[in-house]
């Protein structure tokens, strides 16, 4: 009985003891950088009318359609960022231009050489500073 009791008391020390292989096993880490700026397929709206419209669009239409935009950020996110940075009028013009470019399936590798997760990088800042004073 005494030996059974001793065995039960001491067994956790054997079962959970650090063995050489366990101690030195390489940890599995994911070093992928999750960019929240360009991967912006989220429903978070900033409270503005444009943001709410886009959130509704993403909830009702885009989620069913999937993440199909060839560009990063996606066109809807591009619109929100453009309006936030340049105002509604200029942001709308940039969005119209972005849609036109999205309709064009050719020449993307030449015009957008950088890629993120398979999508062509086309941020708003490329199109914001267009007047001489801004540049």
């Amino acid at each position, binding site marked *: 009985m005494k030996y059974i009791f001793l065995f039960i008391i001491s067994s956790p020390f054997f079962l959970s003891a650090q063995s050489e292989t366990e101690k030195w096993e390489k940890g599995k880490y994911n070093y992928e950088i999750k960019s929240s700026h360009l991967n912006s397929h989220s429903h978070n709206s900033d409270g503005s009318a444009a943001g709410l419209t886009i959130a509704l669009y993403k909830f009702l239409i885009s989620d069913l359609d999937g993440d199909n935009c060839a560009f990063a950020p996606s066109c809807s996110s591009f619109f929100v960022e453009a309006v936030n940075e340049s105002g509604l009028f200029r942001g709308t013009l940039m969005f*119209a231009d972005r849609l*036109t470019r999205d309709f*064009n399936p050719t020449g993307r590798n030449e015009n957008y050489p950088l890629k993120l997760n398979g999508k062509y990088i086309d941020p708003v800042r490329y199109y914001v500073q267009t007047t001489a004073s801004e540049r």
Partner: protein
Amino acid sequence: MKKFFLFFLLTCLKSFSQQSNIPENFHKPESIKSFGNYLFCEGDYLRASIEYEKYLETNINDTVQFKLASSYSSIQNNLQAIKSFKNMSSSSALFGSGNNELLKNYFLISDLDELKKQSELSPDRTTAKMFLYLGLFSNGSLTFTDSEFLKLFPDKNKPDMKIFYERKKNPGYKSPLLASCLSAILPGAGKFYTDRWGDGITALITTGLLAFLSIDNFNADHHFRGWIFAGLGFFFYAGNIYGSAASAYIYNDNVDEEFEREFSNYIQNENYFLPAYNFCK
């Protein structure tokens, strides 16, 4: 027996004790210098600089000083390179070369004020002037003629430098205003002007199709639909005008970037028009 056992035990401890395997001359200056030279020739400039710094704490050697500064320059630590080149003695055989490398480092950090000063005070004023002009050229200040610029370079490089000078003077920018006007007249024409043919055709088709649909619906007395298509058509038309101006700015930026890359690669390949030093024969 006990004494014999103790003697045996002590003998074993002495025989198998850990002894240092480091040779006696490991930390001697000559060894440090040799190791530094080996690292320098292997291209491990960061560690070479550490060894050379260690060596120069207790010794004076202009060749090592030059190699230390070259190591800093190779790892683009230009400020340290400048400091090290300045420490070279004026009586050294490598003083002239060190001065040229110093000027090169001033050029690399775009210190035009110092280059201007050096072009008047430096023992090699031609090289100082060359780096000054290269600095002004890189910054876009073409305050000199092509003949003044070209005479500073070796004959074999003059044709290439002449091409670079012409490209810098006439970069072939596209006018954003002209791009916008072309797109206002014919949707997509501004994009053709900036070599975005696919985007231009898409803009033309989109705007044209929506305009056609609008007119067709108005002709069929479907005014509501007509106005919707007209609105969409105007939306894409206005976007196309803005996009054409933006594409002209992007085109100009790409021209500048490509020029800077080609020019920088060219002068690096020519070792900044300075003689190459080979300490690793």
